[in-house]
């Protein structure tokens, strides 16, 4: 196809909004800010569209679960803060278990850290996605075509996760204390996915979760499981809409702040709290769901849409260069996360008690970053 260059050049490019003047202004501002920071100083966060007060929707929305009025949970005393350490070797930390004991990541192959000591996951390649309190790890391999093969690693043995009938690829997203695993299955039409469960004692068998009828947007075919609690409750999305499945397998949509929406996403569950985002018109809001009461709290807007939560309702955003991660208290206060000197540390996960936050530095090569927060 020697004329591919011509074909690409001939594509009709819609008008755009790239603004060189703004790039200069932003570039100057960032350079100045960097010059002001000393070693170990907290990053100055420009207050964005931050809502200080937890909002609880009282409108009824066209989803099954009614939303009783709820009072804000008692806010714990302001935390003393976090210290941060950056590991010397390159790699990433991708997940941490509920207790904060086990960290998993890549260096560059899958590795498990316990009490700061790394153990390579013998036989595993690719990227871990979750670990439980027994040190059981799930993850996936992928190739250049983004074809994912999920695995579980336990006591030194790697097992491939079973495929769902009709779907070639598997991606695990979470594992609970019992070792039950959830995630999703995909076909070669990469935009179709279905939520799947692999039981602890039968990782070779993929159990398809039943999609609740009438849930989700037409034309959106992404359905996934993204978290599993120790009681067997599963959370995820059904056709682009946040949802949960009870341990008996019955699924339902989760409440959203407004009926005027484009769905949302659930990032995970800790205890009886689920965390995710809501896609309104022109806004992405962080949402925390209480799965036992059915209440939902909106915690203000976020540009990235990716976050983790703790068992007592704190949220930690992933962050990115230009938009560093923050912790959000249960009542919606935003606290910038202490950053390592001279680099941007992005988060990926937090332990159940909020004391351990893990992630890695931004940039073309990454280094693991671990925050220790006094609870």
């Amino acid at each position, binding site marked *: 196809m020697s004329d591919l260059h011509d074909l690409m050049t001939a594509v009709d490019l819609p008008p755009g909004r790239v603004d060189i003047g703004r*790039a200069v202004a932003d570039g100057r501002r960032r350079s100045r800010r960097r010059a002001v920071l000393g070693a170990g100083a907290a990053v100055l966060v420009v207050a964005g569209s931050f809502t200080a007060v937890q909002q609880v929707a009282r409108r009824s929305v066209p989803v099954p679960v009614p939303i009783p009025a709820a009072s804000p949970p008692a806010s714990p005393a302001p935390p003393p803060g976090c210290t941060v350490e950056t590991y010397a070797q390159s790699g990433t930390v991708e997940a941490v278990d509920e207790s904060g004991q086990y960290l998993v990541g890549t260096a560059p192959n899958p590795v498990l850290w316990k009490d700061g000591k790394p153990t390579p996951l013998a036989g595993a390649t690719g990227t871990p996605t979750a670990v439980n309190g027994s040190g059981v790890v799930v993850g996936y391999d992928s190739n*250049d075509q983004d074809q994912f093969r999920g695995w579980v690693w336990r006591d030194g043995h790697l097992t491939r996760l079973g495929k769902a009938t009709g779907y070639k690829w598997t991606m695990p997203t979470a594992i609970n204390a019992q070792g039950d695993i959830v995630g999703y299955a995909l076909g070669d039409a990469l935009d179709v996915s279905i939520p799947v469960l692999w039981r602890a004692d039968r990782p070779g068998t993929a159990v398809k979760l039943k999609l609740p009828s009438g849930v989700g947007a037409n034309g959106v075919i992404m359905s996934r499981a993204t978290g599993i609690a120790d009681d067997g409750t599963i959370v995820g999305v059904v056709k682009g809409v946040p949802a949960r499945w009870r341990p008996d397998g019955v699924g339902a949509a989760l409440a959203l702040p407004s009926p005027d929406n484009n769905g949302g996403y659930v990032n995970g569950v800790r205890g009886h709290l689920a965390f995710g985002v809501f896609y309104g018109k022109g806004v992405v809001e962080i949402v925390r769901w209480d799965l036992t009461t059915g209440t939902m709290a909106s915690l203000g807007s976020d540009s990235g849409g990716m976050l983790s939560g703790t068992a007592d309702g704190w949220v930690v955003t992933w962050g990115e260069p230009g938009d560093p991660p923050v912790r959000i208290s249960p009542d919606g206060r935003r606290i910038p996360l202490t950053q390592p000197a001279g680099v941007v540390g992005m988060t990926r996960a937090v332990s159940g008690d909020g004391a351990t936050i893990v992630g890695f530095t931004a940039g073309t090569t990454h280094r693991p970053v671990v925050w220790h927060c006094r609870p």
Partner: protein
Amino acid sequence: MRADSEAEYVAYVTARLPALRRAAFLLCGGDVDRGDDIVQLTITRLYQRWRQASRADNLDAYVHRMLVHTFADEKRRAWSRVRLLPESAADAAIEPQTAVDDRSALVAALRILPPRQRAVLVLRFLLDRPVEEVAEILGCSEGTVKSQTSRGLSILRSQLTVRN
């Protein structure tokens, strides 16, 4: 930044902007808003590094590398749990079909390719980067670049034949 360096930066970016926008547009599978966001972020970072960048042997290659890494970082950020076509959870829900330029058969065919294959084809054919540079930018071997190229081209060929 000194005034003459800044003028130099503005001149460079003004001249290169259409090509960068086109590359980002194709990398994002025809999503002009995401593509422009990636270009905006890339040129902002370029401003911050202009002193170093303007001394590079091949400034175009340097900027193309930044563009692809910004694309990959943006993907990785939204993606390492949320991958695929449609590109991120946000895009899937917010603009399921409408953000995409469906008028172009080529853009639609490129959307079918996995992001990495798309990046290889855009770098090699739109931006004319040689194989060894593409390999370095994407962090893979030259052999992988070549095989990704032939696989990507054969998929494009079959898609464009069907559509015609």
